[in-house]
């Protein structure tokens, strides 16, 4: 008696697929519901942002940085600003730095809300997504009041930020934080401690700490594996040393250390920490100017610099080479999502098709950040 002949099925997941946020593509080899391998295919959103920098000059490139990672554009703004300031040796006014941190931390909360919301939606729960988006909309309203934009902010400038906090904004921001902390609790009660949700996430896509370091994972993905590495603490920049906050790491209390549930919970806890930072920053806000005097024809001296920013998706590196002219000679961005895409192929082996969706969502991959 012959055994039943079975075939592997090649599935083309993406570039237009509801679970691949943006345009990602996976070539999945599946044996029924179980995946043999999922090979990521990147490059669908490549827009030559780094090359554009060489043609538009230092000031002109700031709006383009928004498009590197549109979900947390404040950090890309900040990264570009910091790189240029380091090249030219510009000191940012203290109030400017505070404005940057406030805007960036609000953006981190917004980005994580989108991440945990879409994650719940990928698992099949629709309600947490709208609840998360509702909170994100309120943050967007605040940021809109601050800089006039809701998604691609273009708030920061080389040498500070574009606009000071508008009158009454501080109180609004504090009122929002008072509203947000219990909402986070409610969100946890709604979905995070749901039995089905934990069962879907625990022990899925387990990344060992060694692997995470070898694959160059950063940010929440790395911290979920138990590696305590946060640029804000370990290579402090801006005014982060002024604030008291914890760096949440994965605990493995629901499954294995470094599984999707850990990555999810790290993001949830990071939102609470960001809220803590925001309260301190809003309280300690110093007076003064927000923008240093920077020449309109910005020509940093020849040289190169590398700066690191802890973005919502982790360690974001900006490498800029200047040749002394008004245009940078070379710009490179190092982003967390690209590294996260690299590890999916390794993690996908033996998972189910439904788990691939969980995996992508838990790594919080943003398509434009992969390709730039």
């Amino acid at each position, binding site marked *: 008696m012959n055994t039943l002949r079975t075939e592997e099925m090649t*599935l083309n997941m993406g570039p237009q697929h509801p679970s691949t946020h943006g345009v990602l593509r996976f070539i999945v080899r599946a044996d029924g519901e179980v995946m043999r391998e999922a090979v990521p295919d990147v490059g669908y959103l490549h827009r030559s942002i780094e090359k554009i920098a060489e043609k538009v000059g230092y000031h002109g490139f700031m709006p383009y940085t928004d498009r590197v990672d549109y979900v947390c554009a404040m950090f890309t703004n900040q990264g570009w600003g910091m790189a240029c300031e380091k090249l030219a040796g510009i000191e940012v006014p203290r109030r400017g730095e505070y404005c940057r941190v406030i805007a960036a931390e609000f953006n981190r909360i917004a980005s994580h809300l989108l991440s945990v919301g879409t994650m719940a939606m990928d*698992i*099949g*729960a629709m*309600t947490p997504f709208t609840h998360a988006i509702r909170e994100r909309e309120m943050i967007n309203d605040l940021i809109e009041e601050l800089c006039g934009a809701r998604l691609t902010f273009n708030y920061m400038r080389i040498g500070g930020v574009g606009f000071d906090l508008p009158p009454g904004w501080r109180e609004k921001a504090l009122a929002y934080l008072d509203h947000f902390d219990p909402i986070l609790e409610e969100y946890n009660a709604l*979905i995070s401690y*749901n039995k*089905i949700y934990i069962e879907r996430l625990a022990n899925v896509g387990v990344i060992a700490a060694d692997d995470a370091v070898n694959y160059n994972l950063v940010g929440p993905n790395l911290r979920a594996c138990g590696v305590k590495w946060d640029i804000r603490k370990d290579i402090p920049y801006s005014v982060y040393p002024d604030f008291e906050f914890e760096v949440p790491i994965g605990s493995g209390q629901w499954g294995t250390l470094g599984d999707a549930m850990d990555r999810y919970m790290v993001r949830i806890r990071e939102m609470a920490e960001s809220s803590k930072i925001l309260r301190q920053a809003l309280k300690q806000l110093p007076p003064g100017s927000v923008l240093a005097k920077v020449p309109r024809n910005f020509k940093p001296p020849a040289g190169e610099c590398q700066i690191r920013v802890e973005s919502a998706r982790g360690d974001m590196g900006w490498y800029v080479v200047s040749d002394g002219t008004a245009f940078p000679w070379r710009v490179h961005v190092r982003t967390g999502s690209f590294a996260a895409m690299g590890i999916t192929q390794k993690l996908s082996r033996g998972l189910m098709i*439904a788990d691939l969706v969980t995996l992508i969502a838990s790594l919080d991959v943003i398509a434009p950040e992969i390709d730039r």
Partner: protein
Amino acid sequence: MRTLVQTLLASGFFGRNTPYDLVAAIAVFVLSAAVFLGVAFPFAGIVSWVERRVWARIQSRVGPNRVGPNGFLQWLADGVKHVCKEDIVPTDADPVLFKMAPYLVVLAFVLPWAVMPFSSALILADLNVGILYMTAVTAITVVGVLMAGWASNDKWSLIGGIRSAAQIVSYEIPAGLSIFPVVLMTGTLSMQGIIRAQGWAPQHWFLFANPFTFVAANILFISALAEGNRTPFDLPEAESELVAGFATEYSGMRYLFFFMAEWGNLFIIGAIIATLFLGGWQFPRVSNNPVVMNVLELITFNVKVLFLVFVSMWVRGTLPRVRIDQLMTLCWKYFVPIAFANMIGTAIWVAIWPEGNPVAGYIMFAAGIVVAIVFIRRVVFYAKRSQMELYYYPTI
């Protein structure tokens, strides 16, 4: 029916020599068409509107509110839209099977209405195997869904179809086993017979008759959700994984048929539970006028069913989706053994108290009330803690 046909024949409308059977067949077709077009399809449509509104409330959105008062006519607008859309059959699909699949799904949705016990008199056919017939015809869905998945010639559709087949066939077993306790207690398979064996008061419902039936009712409800492809068991059409599952390649009216069947099935799920465990149409005898009594019974039955429909919408708005292996584990490792144990437990219970234990009904009902109070207190606690204003304006 017989008198109706004889009246029609006597009127001479069909001509002099028309055989009796032909007129009877026409009468049956017209009558059932009237029931399906007048009750089943509008119900499915209205449920789609209710679900979208309820879901929107749960998600702190507004939901459809433009067409008609509170968006009530949204379902008609959607229906017209879908009819107007192009009916696309993919080039590589199997056209015959592809076109036939939605009809089978709709067939599985309309057939159960024949034994739907709306009131003591309002039932199309009180079959002596009513509940068996109900479970049998609802299982036709799996053929349609599998056909749709296979004929689409699309890998996502195929996975959706196979998932659906595995899921429905598996959950038929605990669902069927959970019907047995009631059959054991009543000794009949007829829908009306089962309802007549219960009383109007909650302590006389089979839900509270003994602990085994209570568990059976819960298993039946969950299994019925799984059979109806409802969240948390909506794997066959999991949009984040399989695009739209077995319905991926469908468009226009055929696409709508699948979803009409899904929404309509909610009523059938509710009706099965209400009949078996919640006393069906039973209402205290307040009047000797049969018309008044039937209207009251009709309302009672519909309230019970619509409550269960609401619960399933609530569940859909709250829970995430399980994975296919967890789905199978839940069915075969937990539900099937528990359902068997229930059956044996009920058999022993019936052997000890052939007429039922009246005290058990009161105790179970009291326990149910305690659980309900605890639940409501918990909801109020969370609502207060979240500090959100509960904006409850049903008519936005």
